């Protein structure tokens, strides 16, 4: 909680000013912009100081219902927090697609996500969205930073969504690299520097061998999983859409959207949407498509929380790999 409070404070509008967009930008335009060569444009070594915002965005009831259905839940009047995430996502992407952003958009890896929702949100509500980036830190495999989206209504913050991204290979922000990384930041708790390099798509936090527990469920994910999530989220990142488009970006197969797995686990955790809640997600190995994910849910009734973990089952001599850990906690 202390950690979360600290983040909320720093997420409050700071000295930077928000530039307002007239509407939520479209994904294809953002991706097209991100791919467009920009001769002469120099990437900054610092995160942009500006924020991007959109006022009065309506939470579309049909889209929320489609989102609920894809996650295997009933279409509810109170929106799934994943809907708030996808609502704000294009705005934060637009911020990260800028030519002077320190990292290219299409190499970023979503490693963690935290959402704090202060009150239930109804479908059809009008909300204001504001996105900024912060917390650039060196990491043993590059740099990490956070994209923070605030969903508010009439000046009251409804939800804060913090997405942590890893930009591989480019250690920026703090001079001194490993030394600084060992001293502070999320990488501090992890072994850094000298361990054997992880393979393509392997994420931090996977160093300790994963022992698969007894699953309580199984997801059989079809090859169209990424396309179906793209339909409800708008996020048509080519690495999720098909094996062919994924190969163009260096992935042997399409991979599931991390937020699809996290949102489905949120639904399966049976959260009480009438209460304030926090939704913490840590991503591990990518979920390749088509594929099978085993899941296990465990409830801590005293804490009012449910933990869901998902993993790729062991096959042949390949060990099981944890793909995500999702904690949903009802707040008092």
């Amino acid at each position, binding site marked *: 909680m202390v950690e979360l409070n600290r983040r909320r404070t720093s997420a409050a509008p700071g000295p930077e000013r928000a530039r307002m967009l007239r509407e939520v930008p479209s994904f294809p335009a953002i991706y097209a912009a991100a791919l467009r060569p920009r001769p002469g444009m120099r990437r900054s070594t610092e995160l942009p100081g500006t924020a991007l915002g959109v006022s009065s965005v309506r939470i579309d009831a049909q889209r929320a219902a489609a989102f609920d259905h894809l996650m295997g839940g009933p279409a509810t009047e109170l929106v799934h927090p994943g809907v708030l995430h996808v609502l704000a996502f294009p705005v934060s992407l637009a911020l990260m697609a800028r030519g002077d952003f320190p990292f290219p958009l299409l190499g970023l890896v979503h490693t963690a996500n935290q959402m704090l929702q202060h009150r239930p949100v109804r479908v059809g509500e009008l909300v204001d969205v504001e996105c900024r980036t912060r917390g650039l830190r060196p990491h043993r495999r590059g740099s990490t930073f956070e994209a923070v989206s605030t969903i508010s209504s009439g000046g009251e913050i409804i939800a804060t969504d913090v997405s942590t991204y890893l930009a591989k290979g480019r250690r920026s922000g703090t001079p001194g690299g490993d030394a600084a990384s060992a001293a502070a930041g999320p990488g501090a708790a992890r072994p850094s520097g000298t361990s054997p390099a992880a393979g393509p798509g392997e994420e931090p936090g996977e160093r300790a061998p994963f022992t698969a527990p007894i699953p*309580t469920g199984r997801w059989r994910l079809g090859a169209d999983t990424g396309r179906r999530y793209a339909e409800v989220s708008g996020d048509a990142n080519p690495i999720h859409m098909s094996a062919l488009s994924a190969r163009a970006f260096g992935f042997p197969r399409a991979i599931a959207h991390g937020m699809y797995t996290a949102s489905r686990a949120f639904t*399966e955790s049976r959260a009480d949407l009438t209460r304030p809640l926090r939704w913490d997600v840590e991503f591990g190995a990518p979920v390749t498509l088509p594929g099978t994910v085993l899941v*296990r849910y*465990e409830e801590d009734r005293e804490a009012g929380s449910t933990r869901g973990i998902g993993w790729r089952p062991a096959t042949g001599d390949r060990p099981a790999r944890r793909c995500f850990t999702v904690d949903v906690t009802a707040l008092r």
Partner: protein
Amino acid sequence: MTSPASSSADPIEPLGAPAEPAGPGEPSRPASPGRPAEPAGGIGPDEGRSALDLRRTPEVRDAYVLGGNRIPFARAGGAYAGVSNQDLLTAALDGLVARFGLQGEMLGEVAGGAVLKLAGDLNLTRESALGTPLDPRTPALDLSKACATGLETVMHVSNRIRLGQIDSAIACGVDSASDSPIEVTPRLRRLLHRLNAARSLPQRLSVLAGARPGDLAPVPPRNSEPRTGLSMGEHQAVTTAQWGISRQAQDELALASHRALAAAYESGFLDDLVTGYRGIGRDTNLRPDSSLEKLASLKPVFGLGSPAVAEPTMTAGNSTPLTDGASAVLLGSRDWAAARGLTPLARVVDARSAAVDFAHGEEGLLMAPAYAVPELLDAHGLALADIDLYEIHEAFAATVLSTLAAWESEDFCRDRLGRTAPLGSIDRSRLNVTGSSLAAGHPFAATGGRIVATLAKLLHQRARETGRSQRGLVSICAAAGQGTVALLEADPA
């Protein structure tokens, strides 16, 4: 129609009256129509107080099982391929009507159901009943609770009889795995609805443009739990491993089921319970010549590759196959039966249902009856050993054995049931004495009726032979972590 007031001929002997203490061999009566009082120390309810509750509701009378009829159960894709749920249910009802001379009779209600049900079969039971010689003014209703459907229809109509709302009824159930509904994808369904609503050709073309080849694939019924993606067999395989149920114990239970059902056919016990249909006279899954060697030669089919199952033990031999079939049970008040010269076989005493949280792994999918049975026994001040005959539905041999193991487990009974001692073990010679689903097969909604009619006849026979009241327990597990259990009792006279 008999009014509640005129039914006072039905004897009401409250349990706990000083002249009639409850004890082994003594008739036991429903203690309370509602939930039981909080058991003292988790062992038994306050019987005296429950009896007072009964006196305050004198209109409750007894409901009796008067008989039953079913058609032979057939393995899916076999003898009943090509006939529908309605065909099968009508056949079972027709046989019951013929056996008990119910032609032209207006009954209080026919309650039935099917698990795999076509959307067009919304009035399946009514339509089936209309196809029989019953008075067409007999009302009907459809009920649904997965594999507990049949037992729930029995409880529904017996509760109505007990409350005096009706005097007679048929409880029935049917399923056809051979003719299970095949649907279109949700996307195609919505597209067709939009197409229907479109008013112009351009609108229709724009709707059609949204169609994709994948939308056109037919959707058969899912064989997995919607919330876990695991099949019932995969769920049970985990429970089986957790309780350490051996392959041999499962095969022995399966063999016992086949032998007992074969013996029941040979002895003529089933002659007034089963009517042939479509050229078959016996359940086609029955293997009278099965042996432990044959069962041991079968390959495990569930729990393969599951990290929770070190050694898979569940085979096609100790699991029930997909089956087609239908069953029906006739129930009535004592007066109604007497007016028609019918013999009450057994009283429907009481029932309980329970559900478990299997989705978050707290309990095994099919373990709900392990919770419902102790609650039912407590409500009547009975111990597990006070039951004369046990009918535990054999979804899988391992389901029965896991349930029995749970009741024998001190840890389970303390931690999960809040009891100071294990519920206990049962005399296995009193379990499924004429065979159960492993031998007969399991057309989901028809199983409850098969068990209730069989048990009522058994209890009635034994009460006459022994001169003592006989109690029978029915325990049925169901999909989605549910279970329904019931208590029947037959008197010697």
